[in-house]
């Protein structure tokens, strides 16, 4: 299986690999989390075969090491994604994704009367986890929404 991976997307010497991204979310993640704003080489694989997901997307970024906070931002968007740090072609650290305490500039506030829609500020939500439901509380309008109804910023 590992051998098959290496054939699908070229291995990197040093950097970060985000794997097990649900198919079709790879490009969005690249954009939403500003992973493309780098001069380093970024490789993206779309619709790769996956035993767990059927199909998956995968992102490799050379010489950039995502820290836990950055990795956790992905947890809301792709909770089953994995983030590995690579050094000298070997996995040096597997980051365990946990829900972040807050998330900014990713989701638009579902409240159409929230001030964030007309003003020069990023959306900002606190993440509230209760009894296996994940809700987001807008820092501005203070309304609370289920994660399931959130859509990303334009």
């Amino acid at each position, binding site marked *: 299986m590992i051998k098959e991976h290496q054939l699908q997307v070229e291995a990197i010497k040093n950097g970060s690999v985000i794997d097990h991204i649900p198919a079709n979310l790879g490009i969005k993640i690249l954009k939403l989390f500003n992973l493309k704003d780098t001069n380093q080489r970024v490789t993206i694989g779309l619709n790769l075969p996956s035993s767990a997901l059927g199909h998956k997307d995968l992102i490799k970024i050379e010489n950039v090491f995502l820290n836990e906070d950055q990795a956790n931002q992905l947890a809301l968007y792709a909770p089953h994604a994995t983030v590995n740090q690579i050094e000298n072609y070997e996995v040096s650290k597997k980051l365990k994704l946990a829900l972040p305490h807050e998330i900014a500039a990713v989701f638009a*506030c579902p*409240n159409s*009367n*929230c*001030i*964030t829609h*007309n*003003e*020069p*500020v990023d959306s900002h939500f606190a993440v509230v986890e*209760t009894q296996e439901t994940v*809700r987001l509380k*807008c*820092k*501005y*309008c*203070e*309304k*609370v929404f289920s994660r399931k109804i959130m859509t990303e910023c334009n």
Partner: protein
Amino acid sequence: MNNTLFRKHIISIPELNRYDLELIVDTARKLKIDPNPTLLKNKVVASCFFEPSTRTRLSFETAVQRLGGTIVGFDNAGNTSLAKKGETLADSVQVIASYVDAFIMRHPQEGAARLASEFSNNAPVINGGDGSNQHPTQTLLDLFSIYETQGTLDNLNIAFVGDLKYGRTVHSLTQALAKFNNTKLFFISPDILAMPDYLLQELRGAGIEYSLHSDIEDVVDDLDVLYMTRVQKERFDESEYAHMKAAFILTADMLKNARDNLKVLHPLPRIDEITVDVDKTKHAYYFQQAENGVYAREALLALVLNEQF
């Protein structure tokens, strides 16, 4: 008491702790007994109302003037650069805040006051209401009125009646009361206007005892405070409204077995949810409550703009 509110933004009740709330109530009490016309001397305060308001704006402006301060501002956004030229709120606030010592605002959109606090260059922003979200100074005058009539903010049985789903005054006051000990809350509303789940969840998290009811008479005899709000006719069809309205309208007759100390509060304007015969009972306190708006807002302005006094 140590002034924890000096130069603070006052945006939302959950950000104030029990000490802050008691400090404001205590300061309001002192200013009501012993007015101080110099606390805002040489201070200029902006009063920017982007939507209409009667009591909030006039009581804020009265408070500033009774403390010796001066006011600049507007009472509707129609003639401002926002409406006429499409300026953002962020830019407007940045400019206006540079002229003044504090910035009072009401705005029809939720989150406007929080946004303003990020662009006011450290001039304290006081939220006079942001859409359906928060109206913290209403809560402060409510707390002051409760303290004034009950002598404590602990160990109280408090009922809320009416539109509990959309009523921001109810939501904010509930969040404030949850910070006090042994509070027992009763929520009385039609099913479709019941307290939102997320607020009930917050109350459970804070260990507050509460119960839900569909008729004032179920609980009125056990109460220290009865907080009335209006069930809006527009939310029901005519026959449905006619059928249920009696359960949410308070009459003097319903108070005949009430506790001596029971006080009826209402954020006003009252339409028909409290009949006028209640006004003459010893339980009516809504007009004094409205007057307390001046003292609560004086207290807040004095604390935000003076480290010591």
